[in-house]
């Protein structure tokens, strides 16, 4: 059975017109991502990966080419229409967590539902936010505010928020950039678990270590895809975590 790709990018271009010089950030990217995939988009800074991410995330519009998200052509939508698509189909996870400060984890997770096209009752909002937090292992921390949570926990809240509207696609931008190595592995573990449950994840990163937890790696350079291949020596977060713990204990014993 042929499954329809979640993301279909066809000859995507993005040109920034800043002053006199046109900056060609993305030069013809074609990429299909199927449901259930876990893809890392890699590249050095200036490779166009952030620009591509913004377009995949419907925050920005390509200047050329066609982008189908879940079968919908989103490359021609206006600001408000893209906001609706983001709300409905995409869950964002950022490097800096981007939680609302002085707002509890629970309320942070409820926030996307405020903007749903279809009214969600306050009761249902609470329940959905709660179960989303439980999914990332933070059910007991719902009443904590971001400044009472560790970096890893904050990123879990962000993941819970991204999941709460049951998106077609989880989009993570350097999700481990602000975390230490152990917490990074933990977060990747969360992603792997979610992916096993069937959620499509696209992650932008420049760290090869992190990319090795994914299933497929796409490397960009100068706005073009240079490699697109499956991850052969894929790492399992649980195993890696165990190794790390053992190493730490060894140091402590020594």
């Amino acid at each position: 059975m042929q499954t329809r790709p979640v993301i279909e990018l066809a000859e995507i271009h993005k040109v920034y017109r800043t002053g006199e010089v046109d900056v060609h950030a993305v030069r013809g990217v074609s990429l299909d991502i199927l449901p259930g995939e876990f893809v890392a988009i890699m590249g050095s800074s200036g490779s166009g990966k952030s620009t591509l991410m913004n377009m995949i995330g419907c925050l920005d519009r390509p200047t050329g080419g066609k982008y189908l998200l879940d079968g919908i052509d989103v490359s021609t939508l206006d600001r408000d229409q893209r906001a609706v698509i983001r709300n409905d189909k995409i869950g964002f996870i950022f490097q800096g967590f981007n939680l609302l400060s002085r707002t509890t984890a629970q309320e942070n997770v409820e926030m996307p539902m405020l903007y749903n096209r279809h009214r969600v009752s306050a009761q249902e909002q609470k329940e959905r936010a709660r179960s989303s937090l439980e999914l990332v292992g933070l059910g007991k921390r719902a009443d904590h505010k971001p400044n009472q949570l560790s970096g890893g926990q904050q990123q879990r809240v962000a993941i819970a928020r991204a999941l709460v509207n049951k998106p077609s696609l989880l989009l993570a931008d350097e999700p481990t950039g602000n975390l230490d190595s152990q917490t990074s592995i933990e977060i990747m573990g969360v992603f792997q678990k979610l992916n096993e449950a069937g959620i499509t994840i696209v992650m932008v990163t420049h760290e090869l270590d992190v990319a090795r937890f994914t299933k497929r790696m796409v490397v960009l350079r100068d706005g073009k895809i240079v490699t697109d291949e499956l991850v052969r020596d894929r790492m399992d977060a649980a195993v890696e975590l165990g190794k790390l713990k053992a190493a730490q204990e060894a140091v402590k014993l020594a």
Partner: protein
Amino acid sequence: MKLFAPFKIAGRALRRNKMRSLLTMLGIIIGVGSVIASVSITTGATKQVEDKVASLGQNVVTVFSGNFTSGGMRGGWGSAPTLTIEDARAIKNEVGNVVAVSPEVRDREQILANGLNWNTQIQGESPDYPQIRDWDIASGSMFTDGDVRSLGKVAVIGKTVVDQLYGSDDPVGQTLVIRNIPFKVVGVLAAKGFNLFGQDQDDVVLIPYTSHMRRITKRTFVNSIMVQAASKDTINLVQNDINTLLRDRHKSAEPDFTVRSQLELMQMATATTRIMSVLLGAIASVSLIVGGIGIMNIMLVSVTERTREIGIRMAVGARGRDILIQFLIEAVTLSLAGGMVGIALGMISAQIVAATTGWPTITPFAWIGIACVSSAGIGIVSGFYPAWKASRLDPIEALRYE
């Protein structure tokens, strides 16, 4: 977007900066407070003047005879011998919407009673007079049309005259002497107090106008004619009709009479307080505008401060209008809360003014509504630009904002 969610977000944002919200509201509080206080004071003053004018009677139109000039001396209104009893009769019979007419003759006389004497105003009137003036008879009764026809020697006296001549005795049935003619007191008027011009209205003796003209002043004209219109709406009509009728009857090139209505008097009397209220209102609206600018300023700061929050909200699906509404509601909440506090403060200060100066103050309900609506309006107007600016932010830029 949920109906109450923006209010919740706004409330949280405002609570986050309590001091700042309070200071921002202060502009609106002072503005609305001064509007309410000044409106309360001027409304109280206007009401007081209106009550005085109303004490002149109900829907009254008064015809004065013209100015009598003799050898360069001008006698003032009511001095010319131009108005007659026939004029009064014609008004009663020919002008529509007239319910009562009283020809009026006035004179000051020294009167005697009970071994005492007193100088007072003697007024010749018709039996309609108490009705026109909306004046109750405290005891006894008004003289009748029969007394008018028979030149009856009967009198109805005011409270002051009673106090001066009879003390605590019941004057009804007693005798009162005017120019050596004994009059029988048939009634006593209820106390009415001072009029708009500070005259004691109770210092009066009413007798039939015929008796006045034949027995006391021996003249053929009346000073004025008091006419009562059927309703407030017909006052102007009655005034015009009387003008036409009398001009016709007198056949003079220059009108030798003046017709004044209570409405005109009301307008003249309240002109001062109206000017005062316009002035106070103008000052108050300046402070409201300043308050509005304060809100706009703080909202602009708030939008800049919360650029990242706006970016996050947009990333998870807030549309431009969701952001616009959120900030508008925040601005309106600020100004409306300020307005509420201002209303309370204004009413309290009006009470303080009333207590310390003795001026009557009234806060009209309509103005409480106006204050609410206009403070909400100020919130919308001053919050719109910052909110629009927030709604136009580019989510990518906003997310990157430090």
